[in-house]
């Protein structure tokens, strides 16, 4: 048994018990909230559909590969490992896609190599920006995201740089 396995069940039990103590009709409240939740889940479906179509098309058509090849000469000048380039591009786009790329890095270079470690840190310190933005904003009908994507990408860039430096220094 792991600590992480305890978090969810305890949380559920605490919430229900606390509700009962406070005199809340927990069942009625639960169902009322669940209806809202089910509605929001259906509402985000078209956004998920749109983003999955675009991202899968982009990766599978070779467009992503083309950009990687285009960037390779530039990034090799500053000493950026080309092996991490694909992961850096796919990660903000697709969670499942990045797992595939990450697995390839682990298979080819080993989890305990410098590349394997920095890829691991990069995986853990970045997120799927476009998907999250599309779902969260889509759910409430926001179409103007302002600077969200821009800053998200800046933060992704910071993750990449930090992953490389931290792994150099700490291992």
């Amino acid at each position, binding site marked *: 048994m792991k600590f992480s396995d305890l978090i969810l069940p305890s949380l559920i039990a605490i919430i229900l018990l606390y509700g009962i103590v406070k005199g809340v009709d927990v069942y009625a409240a639960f169902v009322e909230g669940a209806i809202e939740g089910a509605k929001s889940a259906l509402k985000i479906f078209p956004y998920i559909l749109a983003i999955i179509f675009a991202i899968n098309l982009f990766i599978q058509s070779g467009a992503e590969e083309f950009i990687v090849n285009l960037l390779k000469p530039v990034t090799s000048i500053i000493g950026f490992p080309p092996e991490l380039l694909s992961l850096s591009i796919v990660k903000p786009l697709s969670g499942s896609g990045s797992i595939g790329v990450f697995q390839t890095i682990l298979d080819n270079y080993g989890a305990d190599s410098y590349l394997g470690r920095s890829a691991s*840190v990069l995986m853990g310190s970045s997120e799927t920006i476009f998907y999250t933005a599309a779902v969260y904003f889509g759910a409430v009908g926001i179409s103007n995201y302002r600077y969200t994507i821009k800053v998200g990408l800046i933060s992704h860039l910071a993750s990449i740089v930090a992953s490389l430096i931290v792994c150099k220094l700490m291992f």
Partner: protein
Amino acid sequence: MKTMWCVLVLSGIFFSFLKGEPQTVTNVLFLDLQKSVELIVSLLPIMAFWTGLMKVVEKTNILNKISYALKPLVKFLFRDIIGDVKAVNAIVLTLSANMLGLGNSATAFGIQAMKELQRNNKNKKIATNAMCMFLIINVSSIQLIPINVIKLRADSGSIAPSEIILPTLVATSFSTLIAIFFTKYYERKKI
């Protein structure tokens, strides 16, 4: 986002033609799109469950106490919504779920938070400062233990799969701080 979406789709179609494999588009259309349904199928029950459970929490009025305790932090990050107890609480829940790596639950809370933020939004089409800050913190990744990464490392024969926890924490804190800094910078500019 609309530009980004069109660029992704059109460049995808363009490159599939260029490589002489236009069937890629058809494959994505008929095979990969099923994944969106799978995603919804996996999200819907958990979202309904958590919003249900959160309704119970909401009716106990404990939210006021939680958001009061977190006031200083919220005041700095989300200045405009300081009095909005429901929104603050939904934000706190989303960020906590993300820290613990509860992806789907975080999405459920996150959408709830966006709804609360949208209530007091004057222009329903344009994101508010608080919405941008909230989203950016989420996408800058704040997960404390990257459990999936550790699992994949262990599966591929690493001798110390969890040795990346501390470096990841350092890297992710750095990127989150950078994100907050830039969000604060862009916030000042007019919409």
